Structures are given as C-alpha cells and as structure tokens.
C-alpha cells in the first residue's frame, strides 16, 4: 500500500482525487495547553479527516486517509473508530484488514487502539484459531507485553473452544523454558488451569504443585513461581503446611547432599546445583506455615522473619518487623 506510506510526501491538499472535500482545520484558542507542533503531513491528513467526519463520508478513500493518520499517530482513537465503521459501511474485506493489522500490531505493539481494533475485527471474523500463532509470534518481540497477553486471554475466554485451550499448557511451557521468571506466562498458566470455569480436580492441583516446585528447584529465587505455588494452594484450600518438607530444602544455607543413585522425589525436588540459598521466599513460606499453627508456631516463625529483615530481605525490614508484631499480638489475644 505504498500510496498510504507516510513517507509519500504528496499532501491530501495536493491530491486531485480529494479536491471535492473541504478540509476542516483544528481550532485552538490563543493560548492552548500543551500544543503539539504538528508535522505538516499530520496537519494536512487530520484537516481532511475532520472534513470527512463532518460530512459523514464513508468510502474506500477514507480507508487510505485513516491509514495515513494511524501510521503517523497510532493512538488516534477516532481515526481507528471511524476506520472500523467505514470498513463495515463499505463492505470491505475484514480478512484483508486483519492482514494489514498484523503489520500494524507489531509496529505499534504498545498502543491500546491497535489491539482494540484487532478485537473488533475478530468478533466479526470469528476465526480465532490462527490468532494463537500470531500472538506467539508477537511475543517474540516482547515476551511480557501486557496488551499481547490480555488479547490472548480475551480470545480464549471469548471463544471458549476446547481445541484452543488444548495447546495452552505446552505454549506456556515453551515460554517458561525461555524465561522461567516470565510472570506473564505464570499468570497465563493460572488462568488456563483454574479460570476456565471447570473445577480443577485433585490430580490437577497435584500436577500444578509439582510443576511449580520443579521450576522453583531450577531457580529458587523466583517470586513468580512462589506466587504461583501459593496461588494453587489458596485456590484449592490446601494448607501451606502440606509443603513443609519441600520448603525446608530451600531454607538452609546449603543444598542438601544427594547420592547419585537417589530416586528423584517429584514432590520435593532438590535445589539445582549452584542455586543461591537460603531462599528468602522459602523462609517467608515456612514462617507462614508456622504462623498458621497459632501460638505454638510463633517461636519458630519469629526467628525466620527476623532473619529476613536482618539478612536475607533487608529492603523489607519494616514489613518483617510488622509481621512479628502482628503475629505476636494475635498469639496474645488467642
């Protein structure tokens, strides 16, 4: 679509095919707030756009005009909005529009409007399956892009098709393979496993706990994996104490010794070689387990919080002191 390339310097004011339209310039009072020094091509295109909107014209040339504006300012929500209505009014091919949007999405990946436009197109096209591959490709540009992930979650929830859900766990695992600290991927896993509407059974909970622990073993200082572990336990109302044996492996200063022929314990995987221990998240977790025991556990929880505040997580010293105060007060009143 070279005619719509913003580097094409022919202004709309100079194009004979636009001669019939009266441009409307932008009104500003004498001293506006935060005026933008518009490029001539932007002023020109938006003058014609205001002219178009004023008379309500919806025609193929409006698609060219709005594309020009969008390429100059992808956050111009009115241009997107008018473009979408024009696509519908002119019976334009929405598949062709999606093709164009593929390019625009990648070029303006942090822009709300491009993703909203995509959503509107999909709602009409009703062909969500190829989108999953597009999204995975877009994530190679930015694996934590919020819009990209939101769009995937919307797509899955909106269409709710078994064949779409089916590939999601391998997809998440591919992303965590690349970056085990990608919290967006962890969040997505929680969404896929627990928020589909269907109740996750005991075997699924077991599988998810094992998954989180396996990833913790690889890289213990990873809040995303610990938050996931907590999330699974909270969601399924399993007490944290069920994980005591596992957590203790990460609380001591050195990794437990293993014999080469030892059977791998899936419920309690050992920290990887060279892992930085003790792990602050494990200390916090163990203190939570003791705190839940009430008065009896307090004397074991307090030294753990103290060690976090004094040594292992000093930036949050005030928080750990607060936890000690709170738990101590709770024990006295119980």
């Amino acid at each position: 679509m070279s005619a719509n390339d913003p580097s094409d310097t022919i202004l709309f004011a100079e194009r004979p095919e636009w001669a019939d339209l009266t441009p409307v310039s932008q009104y500003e009072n004498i001293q506006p707030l935060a005026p933008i020094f518009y490029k001539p091509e932007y002023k020109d295109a938006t003058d014609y756009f205001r002219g178009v909107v004023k008379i309500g014209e919806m025609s193929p040339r409006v698609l060219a005009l709005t594309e020009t504006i969008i390429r100059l300012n992808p956050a111009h929500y009115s241009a997107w909005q008018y473009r979408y209505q024009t696509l519908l009014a002119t019976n334009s091919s929405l598949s062709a529009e999606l093709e164009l949007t593929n390019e625009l999405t990648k070029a303006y990946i942090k822009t709300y409007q491009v993703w909203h436009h995509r959503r509107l197109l999909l709602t009409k096209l009703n062909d969500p399956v190829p989108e999953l591959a597009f999204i995975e490709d877009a994530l190679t540009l930015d694996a934590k892009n919020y819009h990209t992930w939101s769009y995937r979650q919307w797509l899955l929830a909106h269409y709710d098709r078994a064949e779409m859900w089916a590939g999601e766990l391998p997809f998440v695992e591919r992303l965590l393979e690349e970056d085990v600290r990608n919290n967006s991927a962890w969040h997505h896993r929680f969404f896929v496993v627990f928020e589909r509407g269907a109740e996750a059974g005991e075997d699924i909970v077991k599988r998810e706990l094992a998954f989180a622990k396996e990833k913790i073993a690889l890289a213990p200082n990873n809040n995303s994996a610990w938050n996931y572990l907590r999330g699974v336990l909270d969601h399924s109302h399993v007490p944290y104490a069920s994980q005591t044996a596992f957590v203790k492996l990460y609380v001591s200063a050195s990794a437990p010794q293993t014999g080469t022929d030892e059977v791998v314990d899936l419920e309690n995987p050992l920290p990887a070689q060279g892992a930085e221990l003790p792990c602050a998240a494990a200390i916090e977790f163990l203190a939570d387990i003791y705190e839940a025991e009430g008065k009896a556990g307090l004397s074991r929880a307090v030294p753990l919080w103290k060690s976090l505040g004094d040594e292992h997580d000093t930036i949050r010293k005030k928080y750990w002191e607060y936890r000690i105060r709170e738990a101590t007060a709770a024990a006295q009143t119980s």
Partner: protein
Amino acid sequence: MSKPVVIPPLTQKGHAAHCNRCLAGLPASLLDLDGSRMAISFYCLGTLDITGLVDQKITDTDRESWKEWIWDQQAGGVYGSGFRPGPFMTTTENQPSQHLATYSNDYSTPHIIMTYCALLSLAILRDDFTKLDRKGLLQFLRSCQGADGSFSTIPGAGDGDLRMTYCAFAISALLNDWSGIDAPRAFAYLRRCRTYEGGYGQSPTCEAIGGPTYCALASVYLAPPHLAMPLTPAERKQTTRWLLQTQNETGGLSGRTGKLADACYCFWCSASLDILGDRALLNTPAMAAFLASCQFNFGGIAKAPGTTPDPYHTYLSLAAVAIAPPETEDGSWRLQPLNTLINATTDTVKWAKEHIPARAY
C-alpha cells in the same frame, strides 16, 4: 534501616520547569499524545501544584486562557457531556467558549479519562466551575458504563478496564453524586479483575499490575459507605504483601512480579499501600534514592535511570514522594500533601469538592 541510604536532593524547580516547557508546547515526536493532551496537561499542572509553584509559575493571563482552553473541550450531546482530550476532532471552526459546545457524531464525544483530568486541572487553576454541565456529566457516566459493569473510554467503545472504573468513581466523588454509576455492577466487574497474586489486572483474566491495582483500591475506598464493597482482611493482607514485593534491590517498585522498577509504579504501588493504611511498611529511603536516580539533569523525571523524562513520570514520581516521603532532614524532599484517592494535592481536592458539586438552591 540496615544500610543508611544516601539520597541526593530532589530538584523540584527543574521538574516544574520541565513541565512548564511541556505546557508551552510538545515536539512533533510526541504526536501520539494528540488524543491525550488533557492528561499531559494534568500531569504538568499537577507537578506545579505539588511543588507549590502554581502561583509563581503561572501568570494571571496564562491561568485565564488555560481555563478557557479546558472549557472549550467540554462538549454535550446525546451521551451527555464531559471533556475531550483537546480540539483534535472538533469540526466546528469557531468554537464559542462561553457556552457548552456540542458534538453531533460518535467521533468527537467526551472521553472519561480526559474528563477526570480536566476537572482536576481546573481545580488546580482554581476555576469556579460555573460552566460545568453537571447533569450532562452524570448522563455521560451512565453512557460509558457497559453491561459487564465496566466503563469504556468513550460511550459504546467496549474497551472498558479499571482505569475508567476509577475515573467514574473519582468523578462521582468530586460531584458528590453517585447517581451516574451502577456501583454494584461496577464492583462485580472490579472483583473479577483480582488475581491469585493479590493485585488486580487491568481487566478480568489479566495479570496483576500496579496501576489497575491502585484504580481498584481507590475505587473501593472512594465509594460512600452505603455502596462500599470492602476487601476482606485476608485479601488486604495478600494485597499488601504483593505490593511490598514489587520493591526490588534498586529501591524502585515494579508494576508486576519480576519486572524492572519504574518511577510510575513507585506511585501506583505506594499509593495503593497508603490506601490500605500500610504505607509505613514501605522502605521509603530506598524508593527516594531510586527516584532521585531517575531525575534528568535538565529537569523532569524518567521511568528509569538514563531514560528520557516526561510529565507523566515526573508528576507520578513527585506524587509518590508526597505520599511516602523519605525520612530525611533534606528539605528538598518536602512537597505539598497529596489526597491519595483523588491523586491531587489536598488543597486542590478541597477546592474541587467545594466547587464541583451542584449547589443547593
């Protein structure tokens, strides 16, 4: 604190000067702000307000013409009235500034976020709000709320998320009139945004992130008692834990678990902690040291050290400091007190609450 943190001074005047320059004009490289000029203006004016420099930096002529410019963006029509981001879609060439402009199509309607920003900007400029179409504004809020309880940016857009929920709640609080929103439905939506981590996603099913978490908590606490839907004690504890976890070894706070620290999240997360009454648990000297390192030599604050400053990060960094100042003798860190729920200085919010609601006749 285990390690004493050395905090360089906060160069308030430089930050105010950066924002003053932006109010005078933005370069063509910032074209993509055309649809959110009112928000940029609010961050600039907010910076002057929070540094206490409004009277010093804004001449009477500027003040009058800026108020007029903001009022020019108020428009009424079938969806009610509110403010547009700027004149970028105004199709009438000679806009009357003395009475309400009208929009006659769906492409130049008011915008809910810009409306929130305009009301606060006018309050910073101490406008008397006699030109405010209050009835129209309530109708506009109603026009933005969708069946799922969320609010869209403009009527019918269907792009609802928690940012606009917050704006609807803040506008209702400023109007002292809650008849423009269906609060139970709004809360049903808000609750769906909560995640297993204890924060809120921007919309249901999305990952927990600082900005929307502030929007959710502020909305919950802005609602009057008869509409309120408070968090349970367990939820509060979990949210505080997650918010504090966003502070990393740089001293700065990140928006999501495991992401890099960013000056704006120092505001969104510390403001959230303040709303929950847990601000004192934050390591404020470490946060201040991070924000100090985000300062640009020639004024303005950037998202991270070594990046380009902008009014958004400048204002929110200062707002974070106003909420959670470091314990230092250095007077450069003292700012005007902030109303955390509305996100403007307490004096400005007081003015707004005295002038925005409809008068009793």
